[in-house]
Each structure stands twice: as C-alpha cells, then as structure tokens.
C-alpha cells in the first residue's frame, strides 16, 4: 500500500473502519470496500493486529481497561479445572472449554477473568443465569458488577448481559471489553444470538458449554462457532463428576373449595368460556392451537371475546381464591422456622402475599442487587420465606429451602419438575415437602392430572 502514515482504524457499531485510506488502496481481506469505506466485522481485531502494526496504522479501537482485581474465591480448584485454564492460556486466551453440567464452569471463568485482569463482558442465555453470574462475580471480586438487560443497564468494567441484549451492548460499547465470555456457547449459532460475538473486537475469548454444537449445527450460513471464539481447547466428558442426588421428598396435595360466591362467579364464567369452545368445536378443529385461534377470533367475534374474558376471570378466581390464602397462612404458621418457597401463578398474587405476610418477593421487576440480597439473606436465615411467580424456575440453587408451596402455575411439565428439583437438591439428610394447593372442581384439577411426571424423572 502507498502512504498509510495518516491512516487509522476505529470501532463503529460492531465493525472496524479504516480512515484516511482511499478506495483505490489495495487493502487485504477481511476488509471490504463498503460505501467508500474499508470495513470488516470487529471479531477480526485480534488477527489483524500484526497487519495494523506492520503498516503503522493508528489503532483507535481499544477502550478497555486494565483492572486490579483481587480474587476472593475460597473454593479449591479441581485438577481438571486447572488443566482447562492452562489449555486456554496456551491457546492465546482464545477458545472453548467443554465441561459437564455441575463441573464448575463458572469457577473456571472467574479464574480466567482474574488472569486477564481487564474489562470483561459475560454473555448468558437467561435472566436467571444473569442473576446467578452477577452474584458469583460480586462474591468473587468484591467489586460492583455491571448488568445489561431489558430491566437494568449499568455498564461497568465487568458486565453481565444476555444473548438477547448483547447485540445492543456490543454494537455501542463493544470496544470496552478485552475479554468476551460466552456461557452456554451452544446458543451462538441461533439466528441473532451470534451477532454480539461477531461485533465484539475483544481479542481474548472464552466459550463454555456442556454440549458443543455438532458440525452441522455449527454454521448457520453466517458464522462458525470456532471462528468466533477460537477452537475447543479442553474437553472433560465424564458426566458424573459431581454427584447430585435428589433428596427424598413427599408431595402433599391440598384441595380447597371456592366460597359460595366464588363458585357462582366461577360457574357462570365457565359456562361462557366452555360453551363457546364447545359450540365452535375449537379443540376438535384446531387441536393444540385452539387457544391461539380463540385469541385470534376475539379481535373480531364478540362471543369469542366474551369467552376469552371469562377464561381470564375464572383463572383469577382460581389463583386468588380465599381458601388458598387461608391454607398458605396455616402452612406458614405450621412450618415456622423452616425455609419456604412460595410459588404463585401471577405477579400480582406474589406481591399481594409479600405485602400481607411481609415476606420478600422476587419477580422480573426485582433488580439484580436486591435479588442477590434476598437470596443471600434466605441462605443465612435472615429471611425465612421467599414468594415468587415464575422467575426462579430455571437454574437457581436454593438448597436451604426444604418446603415449597405451589399456589398455582401452568401445566407445563418442565416447570413442575424444575420446581421440584429446586427444593429437593440434596442438602443435609432431611426430607423435603412439596405442598400443592388446588381448587376442587375447577379446571385446575384437570391441569394437574394432565401433568403426569414419569417416575424415573423424579
């Protein structure tokens, strides 16, 4: 190339852009001439560094910071965790580590962050995992940790985000992070979820998963996982590294009745709702999609609209009928001193319980800091009860809970098993209880019957 003394490269919206290099120059790939500018995806940054240096092109990309992290991790690393870290370091701090579930992926990640000791972004698939990572990172480094998701946006040198929000974060602040950490990296081939890794210039990259995508899942026509993160550097496939037995538990169903007035309303609404569903033969005609059809009809057909509203009202009756609260009151009294989780079907009911019994509530509105505080205080016993709607469903460990009270919820089997699993994680040799409160002679009983849990899954 001719004169590059004025040339520089900067970060813009997930791309690297060359400045003061004219269109007539011979600029090598991956740069492409797009709308009169030489441009490429930001993930090429690491591999472009030698070329930039060779041509004396000013590098305006990095905005990341060196940190002085102190590690407050008290757990002793396992040999395989150290081996995984070594392999990643040897690979130039790029690449993926495959560890079975429960083998301490987060632990390895925290060691990696501490070794890089610079601004890091952690991308996770679910909000539950975001909360979990937040708590682990705060405990590991004793510094403020940033979070970036629909509910809160605080960008700090170490920030946790979701694949869903990562694109926006990286597009704007991609050059603020030197280490890109993708948890559950098998989500990267998904339609837009890989875009963040594509748009980040971070030269150091770490992918974590228990299930690396198969060859045919690797490419979605746009990017390959190993191209975005580097190759697999370590694999540990022993599935039972950490034994996780479920404690013995008992399920107790408690059936309650509606009051006379609740029953009158319920029956009236049920007649409207089921009358419509039956008269139009929605179930026969639309199979599993009958409910969606009802929704669609309700925007034009007054009867369908009435049916839909009736359904909403009868669910409200089931979810917040008087006797359920009476049973809750009694159970809370009887199990005084125990750690109890209360599950509700709706947010409104969860807040109502929190307000009435003065117990902490965790909902999608709860910020990361308060959520961590509640879970920590539950662990120490300062809080004895947590009420929640659906947000605790995945991946959060509350081993201290020995009693779960389910006041309502969907019929999805997965949700049910996860709720069970939560309180049944083995912790001390104590029997756990699951109380399920149901309303007699309502659609709720039907739901429970449909929810058949096979024995081997218990």
């Amino acid at each position, binding site marked *: 190339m001719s004169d590059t003394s004025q040339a520089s490269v900067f970060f813009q919206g997930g*791309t690297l852009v060359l400045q003061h290099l004219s269109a007539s120059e011979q600029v090598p790939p991956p740069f492409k001439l797009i709308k009169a500018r030489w441009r490429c995806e930001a993930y090429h940054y690491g591999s472009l560094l030698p070329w930039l240096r060779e041509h004396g092109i000013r590098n305006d990309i990095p905005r990341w910071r060196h940190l002085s992290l102190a590690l407050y991790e008290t757990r002793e690393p396992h040999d395989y965790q150290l081996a995984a870290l070594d392999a990643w370091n040897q690979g130039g701090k790029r690449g993926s580590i495959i560890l079975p579930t429960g083998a301490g992926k987060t632990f390895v990640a925290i060691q990696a962050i501490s070794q890089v000791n610079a601004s890091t972004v952690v991308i996770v698939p679910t909000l539950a995992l975001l909360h979990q990572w937040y708590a682990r990172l705060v405990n590991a480094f004793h510094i403020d940790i940033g979070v970036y998701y629909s509910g809160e946006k605080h960008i700090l040198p170490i920030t946790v985000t979701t694949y869903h929000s990562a694109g926006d974060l990286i597009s704007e602040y991609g050059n603020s992070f030197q280490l890109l950490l993708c948890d559950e990296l098998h989500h990267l081939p998904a339609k837009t979820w890989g875009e963040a890794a594509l748009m980040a210039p971070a030269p150091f990259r770490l992918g974590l998963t228990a299930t690396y995508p198969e060859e045919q899942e690797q490419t979605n026509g746009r990017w390959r996982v190993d191209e975005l993160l580097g190759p697999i550097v370590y694999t540990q496939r022993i599935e039972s590294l950490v034994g996780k037995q479920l404690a013995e538990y008992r399920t107790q169903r408690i059936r309650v009745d509606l009051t006379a007035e609740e029953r009158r309303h319920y029956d009236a609404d049920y007649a409207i709702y089921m009358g419509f569903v039956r008269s139009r033969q929605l179930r026969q005609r639309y199979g599993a999609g009958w409910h969606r059809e009802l929704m669609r009809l309700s925007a034009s057909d007054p009867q369908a609209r009435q049916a839909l509203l009736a359904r909403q009202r009868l669910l409200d009756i089931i979810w917040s009928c008087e006797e359920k609260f009476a049973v809750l009151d009694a159970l809370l009294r009887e199990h005084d001193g125990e750690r109890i989780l209360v599950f509700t079907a709706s947010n409104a009911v969860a807040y109502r319980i929190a307000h009435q019994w003065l117990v902490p509530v965790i909902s999608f509105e709860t910020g990361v800091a308060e959520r961590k505080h509640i879970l920590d205080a539950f662990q120490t016993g300062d809080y004895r009860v947590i009420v929640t709607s659906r947000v605790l469903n995945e991946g959060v460990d509350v081993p201290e809970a020995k009693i779960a009270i389910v006041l309502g919820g969907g019929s999805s089997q997965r949700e049910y098993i996860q709720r069970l699993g939560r309180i049944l994680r083995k912790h001390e040799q104590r029997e756990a209880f699951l109380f399920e409160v149901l309303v007699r002679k309502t659609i709720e009983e039907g739901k429970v019957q449909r929810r058949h849990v096979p024995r081997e899954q218990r």
Partner: protein
Amino acid sequence: MLTSELIRPRLRFAGSTLSIEMVDEQDASLLQTAQELIDILQQQVGHAREAWEEALAAYEGARVDYIVLRGLAKVLTDAATFTPLETPFPPARLREQLFAHGPVFRDSDLFHPQTRQKVLHEAAGEFGLSSEQVDTMLFADRHASYRLMDVGPAWTPAALLARYNLELARGVLYWASHITIEASSSYKDLWRYIKLFKLMFWAQPKQGGGYRIDLDGPISPFVSSTLRYGRQMAAFLPALLLCDRWQLLAHVRPPQATREMLYHLDYTCALRSHFKGSGTFDSRLEADFASEFEQKMGNKRGHWRLTRESEVLLLGDTVMIPDFILVDEQDDNRKIMIELVGFWHPQYLRRKIEKVRAANCAHLLLLVYQGLNITADAFQEAASEVIFFQQKPVLKEVMETVEHMAKRVYGPRVKRKRARTPRSAPHPE
C-alpha cells in the same frame, strides 16, 4: 412505540408486499373513543400507573376492537410521565427492615405473638412515619406504583388517531433490514436524524433533483438481512415525513412472514410528523445575514438570489449542507455556497474544518468568526474561500468575493438580453 402484539394483527399481506391497516382519522366513533381515552388519562393525573391500567381495562370491557384501544392507550402512556412517589427512605430499606420479621400474621397465637399490625407499627416508629405511610411506601418503587404526573402533549382526538397511525407505520419498520428512501428537500433535518439514530446511509443524486438514500447499519453488509436496526429505522420515520416529496421502500420480515416482504410509503399518505423541523435559521447570525441581504441586495437589486439549504454536499459517508446558496438569476448553474461558521464549540469546529477540507469545493465560501481560535491555516488545504469577520460579515466584502469566485469557477458572466418582463415583477417562486 407500539408492541409487536399491537401491530401484528393489523398487518396485511398481498403477494410480496406488506401493508398495515390504519384507522380512519375522521371516523366519528373512533374520534369519540379517542376523546374518552384522553378523558380517562386526564382523570388519572396524580394517581398510580396501576390505576390507569385498571381504568383502561374497565373501559375496554368486552369490546372486540381492543387492539385499537390498547394501541391508542399505549400512545398516550408513552407520551405521559410517570414518576416514583417521593419517600423519605428508599422503599428497599423499609422492606429489608420489615421482611426480617416475616412471615407475620393478622392475629397472634402462642408461637407468633407479633401481629402484622404490631411489626408495621414498630418499624414505622423507627423511621418516624405512620403505619399507613409505611404500608403505602413498601413497594413505592414498583413501576405500577409510579404516579402519573404529566399527560404530555395537549391531546386532541384527531391528533391521537394521527399519532396512532404513525406508530403503526413505524411498527412495520421494526422488522426492516434495509430501507431506501427518496427525498428532495429538508435535507438538514434528514441528515441530522439519520445521524441521531446511528444509521448509515449512501446517497446518490437523482435525475431531476433530490436524492436516493440507502439506509442500513454498520454490520448489515456482513449479516444479511439483520433486523438489528429495525428499531432505529422505525424511530427515524417521522424525520422523513418532514420532507415534501418523499418515498420509502423497506425490506421487512415480520414474524409471521415466511420470506422477505416489501413495504412502501410515500408523501401521499396522510401521516404527519411530530418531530420538529429545524427553524428557518440555526442562529441569529444566519438570520441577520439573510435579512441584511434582503434589505440591501433583495428585490432584484443584484443579480443573485439567496436560498436556504437546498443543496447537499456528499462527502463519502457524511454530508455538508451549506447555510445559503446564491444562485445567479440568469443562470441557475452559477451557484456559490455560503457557510457561516459562528460561535461554536471547538469540537464542532474541528469536524466542520474536516468536512470543508473533504469537500474540496471551489464554489464554497466560508464566513468565519474571527473570535474563534482558528487561523486561515486551518482551512489551508481546502479549495474554499474564507473571509474572517469580527461582529458580523460585511455584506459588501462578501458580495465582492462571490463575484470574484463565480468568475473564477464559472468564467465571466455572459450578459443576456434584457428579459421582456419588467425587472420588478415578482419572481415566480
């Protein structure tokens, strides 16, 4: 902005084109509905957001046009301001204090001597509040508890319907990967908003005037049909409406579509912008210059006509829109552009100088305020002429330079025969 479930039911598919069903802004019953919603909102001032939502649900009842009702309500909600109740202590602190006692019960028994009322009362005492206050403040930081403080613009039913239609059109663009627009005026606003929404553009002049502009985002060329910039494109739409004659073609892929669809809009649609076009003048300096020109040179006292910002200098991925263009009355091709560089922030000025250099434009005249800490050196590499001024540009000096430049750029002025029409006749424009 409207949520996806309020837009999807109104999408209409026909072959590869997509449209969205808008509402009739003159429809009497819709106007009444709009009025009633506005009334409800106004009654809710000072109350919790939750109450506004309950009032809406009550109003909605069993009406089947609830998609429209919720859409109108969303427009009202978005424009309104809800603020958290002011509390002497953060609600989280109250919760921490109280929840340490939970669970508590209404009545005491042998094992639970503390009733809810008693716990509340004691905590209230510690905070110097009443029990009722603590009760209300406990979750005051929930969005549902925020108070409606301001309804936003002075809504009229017609304005609400118009705005709803605009939001529907914007909604389609959520799923846009790429849009092409054509426009032929108000560029300054257009460029300003394109920049504001962090879009990238590529403009080409059209035959017969105006520009054809391709809009996408930085990563678009590498990730085919990404919907990443859909929200920005939706946000940008009102800026396009500020132009006189415009059209838009968007490549969109809404969730229920199996392939890419085309969405077309142009100036014949009834949509109106709620964005503000920039005023006639950006600064006092410009206004003064224009009025002095009008006084001394206007009304055909010279052979130059002063126009505002109708030309765009395309500079790669940026643009420059000079403040004024002087056009020779007898020959439209003889143009001198004038850019006033007044009292500006140094950073703005640096960018300006870079733009001028990049423009390398011989028919650009810069009028630069002397007080600014720049010298002629700064503009050295630019082909443009520069005149420095103290308080305001001296019109005489400016016009002399203009004549000089025109001669240099376009050659000597050819005197045509006098037109038949008397010179004092108003210009057809």
